[in-house]
Every structure is written in structure tokens, then in C-alpha cells.
């Protein structure tokens, strides 16, 4: 795993009301962070389905950052606590699958915490870099789910593995 040129790819899930705005704020304030992260907006961290995290890994991501409002500040009252509970169970399950639970991280960031979010992204990218590439299943795009109608292989299926 001593890949000198390894650049991790991280998928980040953001809450529409806090961390997505924190990302906006980081932008407005021109706070720099590594380009290794790609963000997805959800309405709430409570929308975070563990399936998304597994999907990110199976699609080739090396780490997943989950972000939400601080405890007690959820715009939907307390849905971030549901994200917290799922996060705990997800990490345990990933460990059971032989995967470093540190590849998933939960960070609370309010709409005002652009600098904090940028800092968290930067340090998470470095943590993942230190863990090395995940290389999950070789070619993630080639996976077609066993479940009907949910085939995930489409245009990418011709991509050489």
C-alpha cells in the first residue's frame, strides 16, 4: 500500500442547513482545503442512509465524511442524533467486514463553521491518505446488485477494470 502517488477520494455528505452552508462559507471566505473531497447535499444528516456509505466505498471512495448540525441544533429538531446512532452501528459493522472504521468520520459543523469544516476536511483527507487506498472490490462500477431493477452498472460497464 506504499503508493507514493496515492491521492485519496473522499465522499462527503452535508446537511442542507448547516454543513452545506459551512462549505459555502468556507468558499466565500476562500479557506483552502484539498480537492480530494466531493460533497453531496442531503436535507439533513438524518437522511444519511448507511447504504450511501457502502455505495461510496463500492464505487471506489477511500473515505466517507458525514457532517451534520451540532447536537441540539438540528433544523429538524433531533434527526442528527439518528445519524449519530447509525454512524456508531455502521462503524461496528464495517469493522466486522475487516474495514478500518476510521474510513468513516462524523463531524458536526454549524453554518457558521466554514473554517472548522475546511480544517476537518483537510485532516480527514490526511487520515485517509495515511490509511492507504481501499481498492474495494477492484472495479466498483461493475457491481450489479442482486436486486432487480437496481442494477448499478450502466455506461461504465465498458470501462476496463
Amino acid at each position, binding site marked *: 500500500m506504499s503508493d507514493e502517488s496515492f491521492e485519496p*477520494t473522499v*465522499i462527503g455528505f452535508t446537511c442542507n*442547513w448547516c454543513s*452545506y*452552508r459551512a*462549505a*459555502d462559507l*468556507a*468558499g*466565500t471566505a*476562500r*479557506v*483552502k*482545503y*484539498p*480537492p480530494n473531497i*466531493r*460533497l*453531496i*447535499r*442531503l*436535507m*439533513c444528516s*438524518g*437522511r*444519511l*442512509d448507511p*447504504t*450511501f456509505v457502502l*455505495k*461510496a466505498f463500492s*464505487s*471506489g*471512495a477511500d473515505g466517507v465524511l458525514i457532517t451534520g448540525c*451540532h*447536537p*441540539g*441544533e*438540528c*433544523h*429538524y*429538531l*433531533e*434527526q442528527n442524533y*439518528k445519524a449519530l446512532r*447509525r454512524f456508531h452501528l455502521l462503524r461496528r459493522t464495517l469493522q466486522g467486514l475487516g474495514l478500518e472504521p476510521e474510513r468513516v468520520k462524523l463531524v458536526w459543523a454549524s*453554518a*457558521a463553521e466554514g473554517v472548522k469544516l*475546511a480544517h476537518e476536511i483537510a485532516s480527514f483527507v490526511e487520515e485517509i491518505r495515511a490509511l492507504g487506498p481501499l481498492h474495494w472490490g477492484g*472495479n*466498483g*462500477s461493475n457491481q450489479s446488485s442482486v436486486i432487480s431493477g437496481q442494477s*448499478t452498472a*450502466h*455506461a*461504465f460497464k*465498458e*470501462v*476496463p477494470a
Partner: protein
Amino acid sequence: MTQDNGNSQDVQERIGVYVCHCGTNIAGTVDVQQVAEWAATRLKRRGVVIGRDYKFMCSSLGQELIENDIKELGLTRVVVAACSPHLHEATFRNACQRAGLNPYLCELVSIREQVSWVHTDKVAATVKSQAVVSGGVERVLRHEPLEPLRVPIHPATLVVGGGIAGIQSALEIADAGYRVYLVEREPSIGGHMAQFDKTFPTLDCSACILTPRMVQAGAHPNITLLTYSEVEKVDGYVGNFVVTIRKKARKINEELCTGCGICQEKCPVKVIDDVYEAGLGYRKVVYTPFPQAVPKFPVMDVENCTYFKKGTCKACEKFCPTNAIDFNQQDEVFSVEVGNIVLATGYDLFDARRVTNYGYGRLPNVFTSLEFERLSNAAGPTNGSIVLRDGKTVPKAVGIIHCVGSRDRNFNNYCSTICCMQGLKFAHLVHERTGATVYNFYIDMRTAYKAYDEFYQRVLEEGTLFVRGKVAEVTDVPRIKDEEGHLIIQCEDTLAGKQRRIPVDMVILSIGLQPRADAKETAKKFGLSCSADGWFIEKHPKLDPVATMTEGVYIAGCAQGPKDIPSSVAQGAAAAARVLGKIQQREMALEPVRASINQDQCSGCRICNNLCPFNAILFHDDRMVSEINPALCQGCGTCVAACPAGAISGTAFSNEQIMAQIEGLMLLNVGEEITL
């Protein structure tokens, strides 16, 4: 710019990708032309039929570009790569709508806030932009045309809290001609303002300016005043709330009572008034909290009433000229229908006993700010004489300590906003009425806003002494003879750079404001959220300060955070304006981000039943399935993520959309070489 002839696609949709330069904001870091061309060529099989870059996509010319393409190229989906959707999502959705495309078939992806402004490496930024665009393309493919949900708005409004913010709100709405139910927990409206003597910085008599407003609210034909009442339950949703209210038994028949006050006069039992008089004075068991109370009806304190304790007395009943005393009166519970709700539930005061080193509760001549308000009030227990706890000694030296419980990590981290001005007001009043030497102990002097700093200067000129530094301790243990018989304030004078011990006769603690003890409970009842400090959270701290995340519920006054009277009034009026705006619309469109349950797939396992803070999920016992009320659903998606059967789906953020976006974002990792 590359155009496709429409062949060799995996999908039926026709997608346009528009990459914004945003002047040099994006184009300075991202090769926007390359991103547009890449999308048009490499994502051709994913339905992209055109990729364009343009200087300012949000300009009217940029929007027309999209509109023309929709019409001429028959686009069925649009992806705009520009700034944050929080800025221009509506702009591009509207452009699509003008061209006849359902606005929800447009996806705005951020390559400014999330790429060009935060990254420096041009190659990496361009590659990331491609990934972000590809994520947007995959996501938009799964978008569905959506229609906003339209609901009617009931014209009546509920205002909770009869302090100055609530009164202002109620009057504004009632004056505009709409029904208001003003609910107040205490026997009278007026709130904290009714307890004050003077108001800073004008030194207006608080009662003189408040009472007319109270009377107006009490007599307004459009205001239904419900004092000594509390909201028990809130059902429904914006435009259509059903609010259950408990009107506590006053033991007074309001139809018969004339408010003559004879019962109060004749009642033989006096108890300490902990509420209105802050424990400094007494009230009767049958009482109105203060002379100007609105409504005029007294209320019976059942816990302390001799009749309720021993079965005899009934002095009030005997003397009541209109037979209005009703010992058998029970609480009334009823419901009202309203379209909007304003919460102006106010604040509690910080408990000064918690700062043990200031000695409140132990050292008799340490007063809280509220106690001082009552002392200095002409209608208060001392008729306005500023005297020590013994009720007669006039202090010769008074110390006013700022930031008690505020700006203190041990208690509340925030600034309570009003304490500096309050401290200055006290200094002025002490100086004016006693001629005593006054010390203000402050951390920073905060006198922002109109005419406030001028007041500070005036108090300085009056000779009040200011010591900058946090008070360490208030003690009655003297170290030298001069300190004997005094309270000694030990503090650091940071301007002089030394420790000081200042003997005084009276200490006034400028105690901070706190969220109501039951704020969390109230928040839950009305579907709001509280900040870590416990204040209700506004929808946007700058741009939407009186709205909340729950449509149709607004907040005003100190319930949202510490503020002074002018700001409370301004918020009360602002909330009223928002409510009136809603009423005038008659019906409103709700964002169609909603969850719904496929009734065939639902097994009635009831995992989701407890997850919705807005009570939008109903369980049908008869059919053993759960259902979501679309008008109550706020679209957070927690239930969608939790449903083990996959029976719950959510619009605009469906599993399919998110998973597709993940794949799109990871496209470049899989390998860029897509066969055409």
C-alpha cells in the same frame, strides 16, 4: 461547444450542461471550457446533448441561453455548474419553468464555493469540477417533475406570550383586521417590562409606555385575550394548525367580575410575591399581579387559600358585590384553529445564587437587577426608595457588577446584550435618588445602538466610577478597619493593572438572560429547535430572523435570544408582518421535498413511527400500515433512511438520486475512458 446528433445514448433524456465562469471567480481556477466540452463528449451516452460555458450564467443572457436550448434542442434535463444552490437554485429553476420545463428537472452543482474558491491547483480543480458535473448529470437523470403542495391559510393567528414582543405582534395583526388569540401563562399580560421602573436610554417610565399597549390589546375587538392559559398541544401544519389551550381556573367568574378589587382588599392572607415583586413584597391570595394588570380580573392562588386548605374563610365571596367568586370553577380546555403562530415566550433570569462567590442569597445587601427594578419602582415595595434589605438604610456606596452569569464559560457563554445598558441605568438611578458613590464593574462596555453610547457618556459625566475587570468576590469579611460593616468587592482593575478591594453598602448583580426553563419542551410542542444555549433557532440568523424551520411558526423577542425592548418590539412587528404576508396569500405552496410510504410495501413494523419530530407519520391500526401526512412532512428524509422495507421514498433526495450522484462523482476514479 459540442453538439450531439442524438445517437448512441444509454438513456432517453436530453441533458444540457451549463458551466459558469462567474467572471474569473470560477474561470480563474477551473478550465470551464474544458469542463463543458468534456461533459458534452464524455457524458454523451448519459444523455448530455450540449455543454456550454458562459461568463455569467445567472445573467439574463445566460438564462436565455438555457431557455433557448430547452426550446430548440428539446432538453428534458438541465445541469448548471455554478455557485451554491442556496444562491441561484431558484434563478435557474425559474428559467427552466419559463421555457416550459418542470423546474425540478434542473440541478445546480457548486463549482465555485466547493471548487474554485477553495482549491488552488487548476488541474485538480478542473478534474473535480468534471466529477461534480458528472454527479449532477447522474442525479438529474433520476429527477422527477414535482409540483408544490398547495394549502389554504386560516386567517387567525396564535400569539404565545403576552410580553411586549407578543403584544406588539398581536396588535399589528389585529389592527390589520385579523383574529388573534393572545395566550399568556401569567394572570396578566405585560411580561418583564411591566416589572421595570425606567427604560434605557430615554428613561421613559416603563409602565407609562407599556400600559396603553396592554389596554389596547385587552380591548381590541380582534384580540381574544387568554391569560392564565397555556398551550397544551399543537396539531396540524402551516395554514391549518389546531391548538389546544388550557385556560386555568381563576376561581373568578369573568362574566360577573367588575375588577373592583374588593376581594383583594378583604382577603386576609398575604404571601410573598416571588413573581412580580421578585420576592421583595407581598400579595394577597386573591390578587391581580399589579395595579395596571390586563385583564382586570383577579386570580385565586389556590395553594395558599385558607378555604382550599381548611374549608373555611370565603371572605372574598362574602364581600364580592357581584357574586363573581366561584370556588368550583374548573380549568377549561378547548382548541382554536389558526393559520400561523408567533412564539414570544420571553426569557428567564439567570439564578444569581449559582455564582456563589458573589454571595447572593447569603449576603442580604446583594441584590439582583430585577430586585433593584422593583426597589426603584414607585409602585414597588419601597415606593421607589433605594434602600438596603433592612428597608430603611440608604446606601452610600453601591457596586454594580456586570456580566453575572453571562460571558462566562462556567455559566452562559453568550452576552446577554442588555446588562451594560441596564447597569448604566441603575447607576444613573442610584446616583439621582441617593447621591451614593456608584461603581460599575464591567468586562467590556457594550453600548451599541441609537443613543446608547450618549447615555454612557452622560452617566460618566454624572460621576459614576467604572472599573474594568471581572469581580472575583463579594465578601463581608473585612481585612482593614475601613472595610468593616461593608460589603467588599474584590476585583482586578485591568486598566490600572492591580487588584482592588472596594467597600460598598449595596451590590447589584446585572444578571443575564436565559432561555425559559421549559424552552425545550415548548420547542418540541411547536416543532422548533433550540440552539446549544437553549434559544429558539431562527430560519436564518441574518436573512430570516423571525421565521423558523417549521413553516407557519415565527419567533419574536427574547425567546430567540437576549435583546432589549426596541429589538423585541421590532421583532414582534416583523413576525406580524410575516404572518400578515402569509394570510394575504390565502394559500401557500410548500416545497415538494416530501416523504411518502408505499402502502403495499409497508409491513407496519412501526420503525418509522417515532422518528418524525413533526408528527407527520400516522399509523393505521386497522390496516397495520403507516402513512405520511404530506403537509406536515418537512422533508428531512430520516424516515426514508430508516425504513427497513424500503417502503418510504423521498422526493428530490431519493435513494436512486443520491446513489446515482455517488456513481457520477466517482466516474473519474473508475476510469475516464468511456467508449462512445
